[in-house]
């Protein structure tokens, strides 16, 4: 098993970095887009709410592979995007729908008393939202956001469908050549676990730090 790594370490490492890069871009992009979707879904205006909900429901209910392939074979014929960006854009759109749901859930689970307390104290709706409810909503959403980030890392293997040169893609190339899929996939699996475990660890730490501040 070791020799698979020693013989292919460059290929594997390349794939590893592509997976991390795509995940990080996916994380930042989907967090931004997801927050926008969530705010749209909670907006006072009915038409904004409908737009937000439509986006979220659409991307939540079709497979990531469909979104990714659409960018790869259809969109790429007009805009020159390769496998990496088709996959990463697919990841961002798909994940942002889930992040929007997490944030909405977080905000909903902030005790209604927080809003009432703030309003009774004279704060406007916007002030109460930005100073009191949203910050608590984000914190309450951290565990479920963490789950989404782990899913994001796992889902980045979608790049292998579109020649995105990620870890999964390289695993297929290597095992197609050495005909030892057993050990090749185990090695690659360990690398994936390395990334997902690190994400869990960071999320746990964040949870604990914030848990000390807000005990519910």
């Amino acid at each position: 098993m070791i020799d698979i790594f020693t013989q292919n370490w460059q290929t594997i490492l390349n794939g590893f970095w592509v997976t991390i890069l795509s995940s990080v871009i996916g994380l930042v992009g989907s967090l931004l887009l997801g927050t926008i979707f969530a705010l749209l879904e909670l907006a006072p205006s009915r038409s904004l709410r409908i737009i937000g909900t439509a986006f979220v429901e659409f991307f939540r209910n079709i497979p990531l592979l469909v979104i990714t392939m659409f960018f790869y074979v259809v969109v790429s014929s007009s805009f020159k995007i390769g496998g990496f960006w088709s996959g990463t854009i697919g990841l961002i759109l798909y994940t942002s729908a889930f992040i929007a749901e997490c944030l909405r859930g977080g905000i909903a689970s902030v005790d209604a008393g927080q809003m009432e307390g703030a309003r009774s104290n004279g704060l406007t709706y916007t002030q109460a939202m930005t100073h009191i409810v949203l910050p608590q909503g984000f914190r309450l959403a951290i565990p479920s956001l963490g789950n989404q980030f782990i899913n994001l890392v796992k889902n980045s293997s979608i790049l292998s469908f579109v020649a995105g040169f990620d870890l999964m893609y390289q695993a297929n190339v290597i095992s197609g050549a050495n005909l030892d899929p057993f050990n090749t996939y185990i090695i690659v699996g360990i690398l994936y676990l390395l990334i997902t475990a690190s994400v869990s660890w960071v999320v746990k730490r964040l949870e604990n730090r914030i848990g000390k501040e807000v005990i519910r």
Partner: protein
Amino acid sequence: MSGAFSTSNVQYLLKGLGVTVGVSIISIIISFIAGSVLGIILYEKVPYFTKTVRLIVNTIRNLPLLLIIFFTYFALPKLGVELNAFSATVFAMSVFEATMVAEIIRGGLLSVGIGQTEGALSTGMNKVQTLWYIILPQALKRSIPPLISQFISLVKDTSLATAIVLPELMFRSQVIYGQNPKYMVPMFITIAALYFVVNYSLSLLAKWFDKRLV
């Protein structure tokens, strides 16, 4: 009628929907049963055993499903387990989703609250009776909405089986637009719509349960 929606293409695609739904239903049933058992083991903290199960569940949960599919189809035969694309997909999905279901069931069991357990124990019921008559029914009821969400993911994830040439919906759409690039956009719209209809109905069901449970 010819073009993207010729009779034979439509029939071919609908059969793919059948495969997608078939794989999904079988995997849902197996993963629900296996996941419930795992979930109870995780909840009950059986010495050593639970720790082992926890390690396995965490490992599988944190791997890409695609990797598990490839592993099942290409690597498991080396151990003498021969699977065709269909059974390999069902096996991989069931294993992966069972770990997801386990976590949901465990969460459901925990959310029932210690008070129910203490109430039951204090009337002289033993642990198994308490679990079976009091905790599990409430936990399952609470788990329905997150389980449905998980099963929506499962339905979507069947598309990954194109990688091992399972002739499900996504694969068949590729075959059809492989005939003619002009069919690409119609095919994407069609399969997106098909997946959406199946999954959105499921998510409406989840919302309905959600409302009824509060």
